[in-house]
């Protein structure tokens, strides 16, 4: 399995070359184009209940797609829905990442994806909802962001503060607390977002340079209100 990011920047695609018999998992809807040797299967990761819980509790799509080179080698082109960067991580079998539900684009088949429930306060106050994806295993993991992806490297006990709606993925070796961003009431009142995550190392935190919620609000002002 080989992968390459095409058109790096705001509107990238990933090309994954699959040897005969190899397969990858992708977010359903991520496939743009593929060789005729590739079969597309919808698969319920984690069984029916797992898929159901993902669907209703995270708003995640019911299925992941499995793209399988069943009739010989071939290539697959994948792209995210939103404009933004793509990064490819190579998981080593020990490292685990927590990924915000919109951040997952694709992964090698040996990658394990679990829906994980956050503690209630994290779920309530963090922007990512109650459920996030916990990704482990060995092989390629493809993440996508809204805007550019920025990697923050944290040494043991080093801290960093991130606005929760800018989170993409973070190592399971980090820990974080949710805190109120400002003491000014009117600012959180009018802008909506009032919370940040204080991360503590060691590990990596991937953040996105644009906030999907704020962007949505910005777009909304141009949409005429209709009854």
């Amino acid at each position, binding site marked *: 399995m080989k992968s390459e990011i095409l058109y790096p920047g705001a509107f990238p695609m990933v090309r994954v070359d699959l040897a005969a018999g190899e397969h990858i998992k992708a977010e359903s809807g991520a496939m743009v184009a593929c060789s005729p040797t590739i079969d597309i299967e919808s698969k319920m990761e984690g069984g029916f209940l797992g898929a159901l819980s993902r669907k209703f509790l995270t708003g995640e799509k019911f299925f992941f797609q499995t793209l399988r080179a069943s009739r010989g080698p071939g290539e697959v082109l994948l792209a995210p829905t939103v404009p933004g960067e793509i990064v490819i991580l190579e998981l080593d*079998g020990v490292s685990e990442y927590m990924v915000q539900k919109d951040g997952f684009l694709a992964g090698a088949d040996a990658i394990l994806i679990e829906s994980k*429930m956050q503690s209630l306060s994290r779920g309530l*106050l963090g922007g990512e909802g109650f459920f996030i994806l916990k990704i482990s295993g060995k092989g390629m993991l493809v993440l996508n962001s809204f805007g550019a992806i920025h990697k923050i490297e944290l040494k043991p006990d080093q801290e960093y503060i991130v606005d929760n709606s800018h989170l993409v993925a973070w190592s*399971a070796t980090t820990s974080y607390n949710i805190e109120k961003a400002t003491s000014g009431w009117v600012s959180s009142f009018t802008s909506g977002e009032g919370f940040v995550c204080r991360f503590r190392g*060691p590990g990596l935190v991937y953040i996105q340079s644009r906030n999907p919620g704020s962007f949505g609000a910005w777009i909304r002002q141009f949409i005429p*209100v209709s009854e």
Partner: protein
Amino acid sequence: MQRVIPLPPYPGYPAMSPNALCFGDEFPAAGAPCIVQVEEHGLTVTFASDTADGQPESVPFSSLTVTAGGLDHDHLVVKWVNVQGERTLYLKNPDVIRAFRESVPDHLSLPFAQAAERVRQVRHRGRLVWGVVGGAILATVLGLWFGADLLVELAVSRIPVEWEHKLGESAYRDFLSHQEVMKDGPAVAALGEMTQRLTEQIPNNPYKFEVTVVKSDVVNAFALPGGYVVVFTGLMKKAESGEEVAGVLSHELNHVLQRHGLERIVKSLGLLTVVAIVLGDQQGLVGLMKQLGVELLTLKFGREQETEADLKGLQLLQRAKIDPSGMIRFFERLSEKDQGRMEWLSTHPMSTARAERLKAELAALPKKSPEPFTFDWKHVQASLGSQPVAAP
């Protein structure tokens, strides 16, 4: 040429795949994958890649400190200092943890036992959590069956009014402590009169409404669950009559009476909380909502709730003999494009249709002759330090 480091043979340890991450100054921030083995006198750490120094490092138990760490405190964190500096190992592999625990010397056993207990607790909590999730899935299925709104209503109807009071009050006090509150004067008296005229007309009112005037140019007003209402002076300056302000007030009071805030909270907290409430975990909810204070203020109501507050608000005005056309006029002015930045609009999208609906509703109501307020609106506005609004 790359140097290949042969891994030392360890009998009884067939799979030499990394089982831990090691952190330190010269390692990548993601951690270096390594193999940790537990021996009689300490740990042996071998790095999986040949980019590190290569030699397995033996660390005696006597130089280790052990804690629980990681996102869910489910990693065992082992620290020591060697010539290169501080090393931190993150271990999660149950086999290694068990082996470690069995051979750990006395001086480490206390912190180790504590750390292991944290790890165990987290796992246990995980099972509990999945129990709740199972319940949530069941409830989801039921919810789809009977309609999710019904489930929300059911949950909301189980929250007693006193809790709503406590909930709203803590957020309200917190909010006011950061604001310049107007304690007396014509504006406070005028709002008091409006509030009294309106609340007198609410049968079996379980809420003791508290309306506060806050000095701010923000053109807004909001209501918290339990009957706590804030009107900003900016809105009063913008209004052309007391009846216009009374219209907004009546709308906000009806958000409280219809428990829209609670419905919204329950909806945004998700089905999980709905399940918790239905199953009787109401105590936990109050705790969660206390933390949530800020969020209460940023709540946006749904369109149906807005319409309900509009219509019920109009009826309440009518009963209180306050001219309801003031409310309609205010909405109409808001729906005009050139209103600039008005915060009430950010939570109350205005459209001509909204005012039209109210006009139609008003036409259907029996005519009542309005009774004017005792205050002079121009006088009230002048006390706020604003120029009287010039007639167009």
